[in-house]
């Protein structure tokens, strides 16, 4: 890797003849602060480029090997921090696969509803930021408004706007609040309205379309070989969605479509996200219809789930249960498991290795962003300088997840 800014010797004080070496990022507004692209330009077009990530590598996997399994939740929260709930659910599912337990039906619907809401906030953020980077500031503000609604709902449910740490192995931290269903209905209605506004504002906009259509094209073969998943892969016309292909929770019982694009360009990626927003909204609707108002949310096995605080403070059994789970951590059987679910950016996989103790021996998260960003070089090589921003924006690279 070359130094941040290289010393030019006096001979080349005047701009060098091409190829010209241009360094974008990491502290560049379009690079989300965590990516650096070193480009070799001839005129406007990019001859070669080197995408450098890792400016947000926070040692996620190492930290996970220090605490208990439950203490991993805050860390996964901060992996994909645009849709933390999806990470929560994904990790909880992984641990439950390891334990061989399934959560009660009510909890499954609850998880799905929250997860889809998180997906909506993810796509809203991505498309909004994308529009903003192309100069369309208003849609960004509108979409952030919609995201605020989701976050208020999340705060009502979990107590935190962004990093919830709400998932638990064998359930959720709390059952749904009384007003959850009404709030969710209202939020989804509002957001569908916002999406219509945004569509009307953007999709007739010549500049917007010209900057996206046919830009950052990726063929399906390339995308598959690059290990792309999620919206970016679907934009290339490959209808691979974990929720459909390998249904988990209750996704096989809800009706939704997997929108796919044709061209695999930035515009398709944008539109796929828009379409998925609508799908997610309908999934949320179906979930809150199917979700029972009463009934257990957590599994009953006291070796997995924490007791209610009343019991902890009043009965010795509760105290012991709390003590064992908090101090020693719940024990996952020795072995390994790879559990996968549909994250905001595609297949979010967790590869857990347990030695039977209360602490993870190895916890590997399969970050969709990492592989998507791995394809950026192939996407922008040969493209024009100005196409980097929409292409990169449409990949929705999340630093925390890509670099971990």
């Amino acid at each position, binding site marked *: 890797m070359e130094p941040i800014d290289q010393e030019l010797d006096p001979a080349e004080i005047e701009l060098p003849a091409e190829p010209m070496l241009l360094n974008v990022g990491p502290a560049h507004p379009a690079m989300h602060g965590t990516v650096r692209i070193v480009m070799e330009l001839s005129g406007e077009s990019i001859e070669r480029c080197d995408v450098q990530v890792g400016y947000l590598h926070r040692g996620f996997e190492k930290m996970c090997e220090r605490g208990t399994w439950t203490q991993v939740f805050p860390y996964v929260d901060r992996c994909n921090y645009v849709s933390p709930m999806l990470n929560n659910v994904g990790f909880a599912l992984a641990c439950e696969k390891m334990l061989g337990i399934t959560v009660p039906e009510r909890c499954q619907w609850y998880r799905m509803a929250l997860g889809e809401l998180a997906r909506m906030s993810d796509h809203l953020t991505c498309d909004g930021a994308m529009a903003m980077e192309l100069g369309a500031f208003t849609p960004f503000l509108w979409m952030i408004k919609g995201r605020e609604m989701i976050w208020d709902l999340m705060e009502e449910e979990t107590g935190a706007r962004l990093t919830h740490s709400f998932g638990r192995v064998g359930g959720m931290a709390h059952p749904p609040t009384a007003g959850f269903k009404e709030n969710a209905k209202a939020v989804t209605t509002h957001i569908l309205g916002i999406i219509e506004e945004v569509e009307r504002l953007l999709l007739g906009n010549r500049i917007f379309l010209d900057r996206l259509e046919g830009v950052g094209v990726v063929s399906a073969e390339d995308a598959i070989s690059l290990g792309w998943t999620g919206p970016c892969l679907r934009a290339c016309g490959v209808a691979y969605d974990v929720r459909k292909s390998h249904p988990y929770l209750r996704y096989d019982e809800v009706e939704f479509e997997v929108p796919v694009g044709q061209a695999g360009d930035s515009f398709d990626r944008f539109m796929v996200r828009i379409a998925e927003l609508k799908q997610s909204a309908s999934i949320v609707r179906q979930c809150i219809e199917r979700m029972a108002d009463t009934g257990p949310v957590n599994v009953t096995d006291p070796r997995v789930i924490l*007791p209610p605080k009343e*019991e902890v403070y009043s009965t010795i059994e*509760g105290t012991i249960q709390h*003590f064992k789970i908090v101090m020693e951590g719940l024990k996952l059987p020795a072995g390994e498991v790879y559990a996968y679910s549909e994250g905001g950016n595609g297949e979010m996989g967790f590869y857990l290795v347990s030695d039977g103790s209360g602490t993870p021996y190895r916890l590997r998260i399969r970050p969709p962003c990492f592989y998507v960003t791995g394809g950026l070089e192939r996407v922008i090589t040969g493209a024009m300088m100005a196409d980097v921003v929409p292409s990169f924006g449409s990949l929705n690279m999340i630093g925390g997840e890509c670099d971990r």
Partner: protein
Amino acid sequence: MPSFKLDDIDIPFEPGDTVIRAAQRVGVDIPHYCWHPGLSVAANCRMCLVEIEPPPGRPAMMLDVLAWDAEKHEYVPQKKPKLQPACQFAAADGLVVKSQSSQHATRARSAVQELLLLNHPVDCPICDQAGECRLQDYWLEHQHTKKRMKDEPVHKPKGVVFGPTIVYDAERCIVCTRCVRFCDEVAKDPVLSVRERGNLNEIVVSPGRKLDHPYTLMTEYVCPVGALTAVDFRFKARVWFLRSARTVCVGCATGCNSFTDFDPRTQEVYRYRPRENKAVNQYWMCDEGMLDHRRIGQGRVLHALVGGKPSQRDAALARAADLFVSAPPETTAVVLSAEHSLEDNFALLELARDGLKTQNVYFTGRAPGQGDNVLRDADKNPNTNGVKKLAPNAKPFAELVKAADEGKLTHVLALGSQAPADATALGKIKHLVALATHEGPFQAHAAIVLPAASWAEAEGTFVNRQGTTQESERAVTPRGDSRPAFRWVHELRLALDRPPAWKKLGELRAAMQPASAAATGARP
């Protein structure tokens, strides 16, 4: 060898074994509270109930019980096998025992566990046993149900002072009588007994007595729950923060095997726990030894002293080297110490032989104390045998005093802190360099004191009174400027420009092997 089946595992046993003992020998654990391998069988906790298959052709011993039928909503008569306590049931060849595999046994255990927790206070947050408490472990393994009793639990005295070392909490007590049996059988001082019956019973000290025999802390050690707590350890640390090193007690010549529990964050030693060794201390340790960890922090020499004044360790080392570089061999002597490990003594002896070329070797140690015929030895030095075998012709401390008195010694390099007898004569030695862990006569009279690491701060090998060589691990990092004595010797020899053949501890031990092998014979 005869064997029986326990949950389809073949378990060999020796004649006279009980089921639980044979199982434990091969590492199969049957849950138990009252049974302890070192104590007699009481069979009063009923946790170890197992189902015994009847011999072929014989009917099983069945009991008629009333079981609640949820559908019929009434009690219905049922038959269930008579369960046997594994701690009392003698193993027999071809016996078929069902422990985990028998749902009757597991249900019985769950019930027993629930009964034991019936009146248990919600004390885990303030209980020193929490983290190593049988009640907690077995709740998770055998009960994991919620509380059903709605009544107020029975309240019993808390914080009863049994003696100078032990505090008793009757509410936490499950009256397994381990402590009673220990005092009776091992300590030979039956000072504890059980009062009342049913859920009111509790452990009491005999009227007019205190729990003050030399093995009181063992009662806390055998207590499977938090009923008996040691004053020494009470509210000092949480056990899940502690780490353990496998060490040897240096309190006396017995050399009891022990665990040294320390906090890796603060490098503080909090307690000793006995480590099972059938050949040496079985399962026990004495109070003296258990409380010996206090000496690690008390009266230590932590910085080098030159002429009684604190000094940089390098400076002090250089001064010491200057003293010995031109020391006349005939008036030079080294003093070995039975307080220190073979490594330290061997390094020093080597220095005397190769470095200082002197034949004057003395040895010292702590003054003898009380002994008994259980564990404690009158000789309070952990390594007397080691030193004796290492340097058979080392002269005793008395002669050192004599020689010093007659002014025969000018340069003395002394290991160890304590002296067995009056040591004022040491003041007559012109150049006395002490490698001392603690303050004492040597530190008092020495011209130069080099701070040595204590037993808990260095690996060491000790030879106990039976002539068994036992290695002790390092628990914590040396305090202050102190470092293992053999390291000091090594540096001293470098400073003297007479470097030894060894650099690392491993090499030192290798160099020591023949000597210690001669000293010890076989290692357990």
